[in-house]
């Protein structure tokens, strides 16, 4: 396997909670020891419910917030080190946010917004404007009509196209899409998803695609990472995860997708209750409070990520083989393959 373009090692972010006097009263364990690698040219989807740390992970990757612990390596170089200063890293990795309106400067025309990034990286103003107009064309907005417009003059879908063009203006290698299509109407969402696929091919991009919409993630991702309360529950190739989810949480999450068949509606909720608060996450396996397979040991032992199929499918549950109702033979086979990841 090739060396990954981006590596994340034991990434951790704890937000301190303080009382009115400033004394520390606890901490939100937003991201807790998350490790994964992004391969060049792939799309890695991150799914999970609110509070699972998927957006915090994205912000940590972009160095928008400082991690409590852990490292981010871009092509083997530590981000923020003398080898790879932040400014250079930000030329390589760009982000598109969910709210297309608040992520654009309302006082700048879209052309100026798109041209701003390249100028910061030493492109002349004239060349930057040429690039901006070219990118507007590439994202499906006619530069003659749109270059001089302000964000409020555009629809949500058009604004998100501008945000994508702006992210691409510095010619990045990786684009992080944090719920980038979630605020769009379905018919517009489909247009933007198609655009993202076209641009990925045209510019040889690698995507980290964060969404709560499992259908969209399945459609666009090569691999999927399922997060629960700040930790990785399962990571693997998209079809492997969707066909045989191994972690009880992934199983419940996938079974929670509404049926599209009126004759096969969902009979009973796959799990009860809401995700717990990440301020005081449950001990041991964080999912044990909602897990129908939970055993006494689950509330004590934290679950490391285990390989089910090496390099293809990882799961943070010791009992996954039994839970997935795998045959005895395959359980043994899986057990033989068990090697701890990131050792």
């Amino acid at each position, binding site marked *: 396997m090739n060396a990954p373009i981006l590596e994340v090692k034991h990434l951790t972010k704890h937000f301190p909670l303080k009382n009115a006097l400033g004394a520390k009263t606890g901490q939100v364990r937003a991201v807790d020891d998350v490790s994964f690698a992004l391969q060049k040219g792939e799309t890695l989807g991150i799914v999970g419910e609110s509070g699972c740390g998927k957006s915090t992970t994205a912000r940590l990757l972009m160095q928008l917030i400082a991690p409590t612990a852990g490292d981010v390596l871009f092509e083997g170089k530590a981000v923020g080190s003398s080898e790879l200063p932040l400014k250079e890293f930000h030329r390589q990795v760009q982000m598109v946010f969910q709210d297309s309106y608040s992520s654009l400067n309302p006082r700048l025309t879209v052309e100026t917004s798109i041209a701003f990034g390249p100028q910061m990286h030493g492109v002349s103003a004239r060349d930057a404007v040429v690039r901006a107009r070219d990118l507007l064309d590439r994202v499906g907005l006619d530069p003659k009509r749109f270059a001089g417009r302000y964000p409020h003059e555009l629809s949500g879908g058009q604004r998100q196209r501008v945000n994508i063009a702006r992210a691409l203006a510095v010619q990045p290698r990786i684009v992080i899409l944090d719920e980038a299509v979630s605020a769009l*109407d379905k*018919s*517009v969402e489909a*247009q933007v998803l198609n655009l993202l696929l076209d641009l990925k091919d045209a510019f040889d991009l690698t995507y980290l695609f964060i969404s709560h919409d*499992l259908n969209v993630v399945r459609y666009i991702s090569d691999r999927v990472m399922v997060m629960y309360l700040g930790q990785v529950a399962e990571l693997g190739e998209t079809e492997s995860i969707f066909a045989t989810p191994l972690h009880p949480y992934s199983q419940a999450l996938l079974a929670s997708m509404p049926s*599209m068949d009126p004759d096969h509606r969902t009979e*009973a*909720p796959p799990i009860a209750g*809401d995700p717990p608060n990440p301020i005081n996450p449950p001990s041991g396996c964080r999912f044990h409070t909602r897990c129908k397979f939970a055993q006494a040991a689950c509330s004590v032992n934290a679950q490391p990520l285990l390989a089910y199929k090496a390099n293809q499918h990882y799961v943070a549950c010791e009992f996954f083989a039994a839970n997935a109702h795998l045959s005895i033979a395959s359980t043994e086979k899986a057990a033989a393959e068990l090697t701890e990841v990131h050792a």
Partner: protein
Amino acid sequence: MNAVLDFNTVAASAPAAVIEHLRVTFTGGASPVRAVNDVSLTLKRGETLALIGESGSGKSVTLRSLLRLHPPKKTQISGRIEVSGRDVLAMNTSTLAAFRGRVASMIFQEPLLALDPVYSVGDQIIESIQRHIKVSRAEAHARALKLFEQVRIPSPERRLAAYPHEMSGGMRQRVMIALALACDPELLLADEPTTALDATVQIQILLLLRELQSRLGLSIIFVTHDIGAAVEVADRIAVMYAGQIVEEGDVRTIMRSPRHPYTQALLQSRAHGSLAKGSRLATIGGAPPDLANLPPGCAFAPRCNFADDGCKQSEIALVSLTPKHHARCRKTEQESPPSGGEG
């Protein structure tokens, strides 16, 4: 001057709700916005109807008109709205106040905004009960407790004393449902009740609504942009576009043989599991029309592959395909049979 209505006298044979030629125009802005343009529908008793559409299609405006929730000075409403045989548009203020919550009540998308932050949730339900029904506080409290059990709130007695901010999103939505059901309404209106919830919680609330509907014999109008949510709860689906119902029929018909080009495109533009990797989604070009400046003919014509000049000239009549399946389109005979209904 407590206008407690004698709602028992209403003929039990009247449909739960009848809307005829409803038009809603908002006049507060620079130019009038025609949010609803000639909507007619009938909801039978015990039936669940889903109004689906994208943002700006008029689905929430239609729903809110049933309780007359629009600001009267900035809204022109014409047409006819009857709930359980009562003319809603003719009600005076006190009749309307007695009608809301007692005959028809609403569940909103954001329970945190809809619930009062300074009263415990129990107090809010008790107030609502005592507002409409002559019972002592103790009786109202007992009733509130029963409601909490009905919507499956764990440790209901303790939860009655809780404030909205102390509850999780799913629990707050259960409180919202309990509040809406406090006075045994005949008609339940639900405005995107699961949109703000996480996937594993959303399915719990959808199934709760389905269960309450069948147990209490409620009539429900359910507004959503999520086709899957509609399939899970609804008997019938009405698809809205630019303030009109463009197609209406039972769930199976709409999912399996949609006849309006917009419905077909909406179903085909969804990302779903059976799509091949890297294939592009079918999209609807363009964007929904500006409601302040609607075209004279079919509002979908500028985005429709089947449209001709005739579609752009005058309003399109509703065509009855079967007695229970209607589409507002001149071309229902000519379209290619759609695929639709995949999982």
